[in-house]
């Protein structure tokens, strides 16, 4: 492997990599516009020029492969001059509308102008102006802000594969666009707004909602399908404003799909359950947490004593985290109803694969894989095959259903009928559904953005989610709710915190680690049933 020197620091770079990649490895930052690690190399923005010994010109760090003994300088006057020149050129026709541009604050052009730019304009001519265009379901194009890095064009070609973003005209009139009448409506379109280093492509959904510097970012995992893309929840004041993909080579690469991108709306929806409810005279009415826990545990104990533990069934949805699933299974184990433990599967959709290898899985819920792993660990072997057979629950006297917002509608209907027929149906969820309508008592839980824990994706990658803010109203954390119910029934569990449950999980399940050990890119379970990861 070639050894090169960058700014007097030596590094052994991988064969075939570029100066840019080697510098990134060393933590030496070289500015870039057109370079994106998830796309092919264009080399057209010309800002990453570095001085290489024995080369008369500045070489583009993004496009120059490393060679043994190469000596690179990124901090000389010539390099800085080159950067300044490119900055000046880019700003010539760039409108100064940062105050109303959503990109301001995370705009690469803005940042570099401060770091590398002249700080003043020598351009006295008229700027080329253009109107904004509506180019897709969630995309606006402000062509005059474009700096022609062509990331979007390469993305449309290499990752989405639809090729509908193109470069038109030439010279100073060169612009990015789509053919008149064409709209970029594929499910990866949102990434175009993400990779645009300036405010040329903007998301309509996020348009003018917030200035980006007001947002806090929380690392999480997208719950919209079983790929479980690593994401950042950008939120402020207890509301998510947008989702962005978080680079994870184990899972999603650099991208995420628009289904996941828009899934955050459920977190702040009006359908969220905010108060515990109990049925009085046939109507669901609000009651306090202490009452609902006491009543619910009382009814569960009653059913066990009167009809035996087999009259009691426990259903958990694929929205639950591994830790919640563990607690839930423990509860079922304590009450002696493990044979009646069931999985409420997630929604199903079309499996979509894109040109660049990015996949949207047909299982549109976050953790079916992980919940199943946990349930199968606990359930007796003979009843394991019935783990998804919800029909077998008809006629059970008592039901505790841990419902999710990504659950299969048919299964919910089925369970709702079972719940209506049962003596007692405790429904624990975060949004109202036919199931909560049929419940005897409703426990308001948290959405994925509000809780802590781990999800296991379809390929066995265990990823951690972090809470961005508290659940709305009186809604509680699901883990605590299950713990409290267990405690009130008289079967307190051997752990009290999510972290402890996670550690327990790591001890019990083959190939699992605790949530602290997952890191930002997740832990790939070596014993997972499906090997390999989707690359984006």
């Amino acid at each position: 492997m070639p050894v090169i020197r960058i700014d007097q620091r030596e590094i052994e770079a991988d064969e075939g990599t570029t100066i840019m990649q080697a510098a990134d490895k060393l933590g030496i930052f070289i500015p870039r516009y057109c370079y994106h690690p998830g796309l092919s190399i264009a080399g057209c923005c010309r800002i990453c020029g570095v001085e290489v010994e024995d080369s008369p010109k500045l070489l583009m760090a993004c496009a120059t492969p490393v060679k043994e003994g190469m000596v690179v300088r990124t901090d000389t006057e010539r390099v800085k001059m080159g950067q300044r020149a490119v900055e000046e050129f880019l700003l010539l026709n760039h409108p100064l509308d940062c105050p109303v541009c959503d990109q301001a604050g995370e705009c690469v052009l803005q940042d570099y102008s401060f770091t590398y730019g002249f700080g003043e304009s020598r351009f006295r001519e008229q700027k080329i102006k253009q109107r904004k265009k509506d180019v897709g379901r969630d995309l606006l194009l402000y062509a005059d802000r474009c700096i022609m890095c062509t990331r979007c064009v390469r993305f449309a070609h290499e990752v989405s594969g639809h090729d509908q973003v193109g470069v038109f005209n030439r010279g100073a009139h060169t612009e990015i666009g789509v053919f008149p009448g064409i709209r970029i409506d594929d499910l990866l379109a949102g990434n175009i707004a993400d990779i645009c280093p300036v405010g040329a492509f903007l998301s309509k959904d996020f348009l003018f909602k917030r200035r980006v510097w007001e947002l806090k970012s929380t690392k999480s995992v997208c719950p919209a399908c079983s790929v479980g893309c690593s994401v950042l929840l950008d939120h402020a004041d207890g509301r998510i404003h947008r989702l962005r993909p978080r680079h994870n080579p184990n899972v999603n690469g650099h991208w995420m799909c628009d289904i996941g991108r828009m899934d955050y709306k459920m977190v702040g929806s009006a359908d969220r359950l905010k108060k515990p409810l109990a049925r009085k005279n046939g109507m669901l009415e609000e009651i306090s947490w202490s009452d609902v826990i006491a009543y619910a545990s009382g009814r569960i104990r009653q059913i066990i004593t009167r009809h035996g533990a087999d009259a009691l069934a426990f259903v958990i949805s694929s929205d639950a985290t591994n830790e919640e699933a563990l607690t839930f299974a423990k509860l079922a184990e304590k009450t002696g109803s493990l044979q009646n433990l069931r999985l409420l599967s997630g929604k199903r959709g079309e499996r979509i694969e894109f040109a660049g290898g990015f996949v949207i899985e047909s299982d549109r819920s976050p953790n079916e894989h992980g919940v199943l792993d946990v349930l199968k660990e606990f359930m007796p072997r003979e009843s394991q095959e019935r783990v998804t057979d919800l029909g077998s629950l008809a006629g059970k006297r008592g039901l505790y259903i841990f419902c999710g917002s990504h659950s299969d509608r048919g299964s919910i209907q089925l369970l709702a009928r079972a719940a209506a027929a049962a003596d007692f149906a405790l429904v624990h969820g975060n949004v109202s559904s036919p199931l909560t309508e049929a419940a005897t008592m409703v426990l308001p839980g948290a959405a994925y953005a509000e809780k802590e824990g781990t999800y296991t994706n379809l390929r066995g990658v265990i990823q951690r989610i972090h809470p961005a803010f508290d659940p709305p109203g009186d809604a509680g954390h699901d883990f605590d709710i299950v713990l409290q119910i267990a405690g009130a029934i008289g079967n307190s569990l051997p752990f009290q915190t999510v972290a402890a449950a996670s550690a327990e999980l790591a001890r019990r399940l083959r190939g699992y680690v605790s949530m602290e050990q997952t890191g930002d890119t997740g832990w790939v379970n070596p014993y997972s049933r499906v090997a390999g990861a989707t690359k984006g």
Partner: protein
Amino acid sequence: MDEKPDTEGKREEIVREAHEMNFIDRLYLPALLKGLADTFRHLFEEKFTIEYPEQKRQVYPRYRGLHRLNKDELGRVKCVACFMCSTICPARCIYIVGAEAPWPDREKYPVRFDIDELRCIYCGMCEEACPVEAIELTEIYDMVGASRKDLIYNKEMLLEIYDRTKEKGGMKKWI
């Protein structure tokens, strides 16, 4: 450090011991008359107080009072909802909700623009930060309200302040 600071002597000058009161002093009458004479004399001298609220104090040109939201030539709010003022505001008293402007020549405008005038510390940073000279501090200092809520000025109220003060022109007259 051989030069001793000349503070000792000064202190001596200031701290004087009260002298012992004699009989005359203890009558208080001379002092009383002297005081009355002082008061009486001031009746004929130049007065510094004003008859507020009938009379208003003339403030200095750089005075920082109640905010106003300026309008453009077409009477539309000048503000582009860039959130610079709310970002810079040390008291966090500005609340803006931006939206797409209904006018073809403008990109963004505020649908809501609230300033909590009680939280505000009148530092004028908002005015400084504004890229379009939309928010300015006027010379108005007498805000009255029956409750705290009354002193949260919304967009309409702030625009009305502009109408009330616009003849005075831009507030940045000292620049």
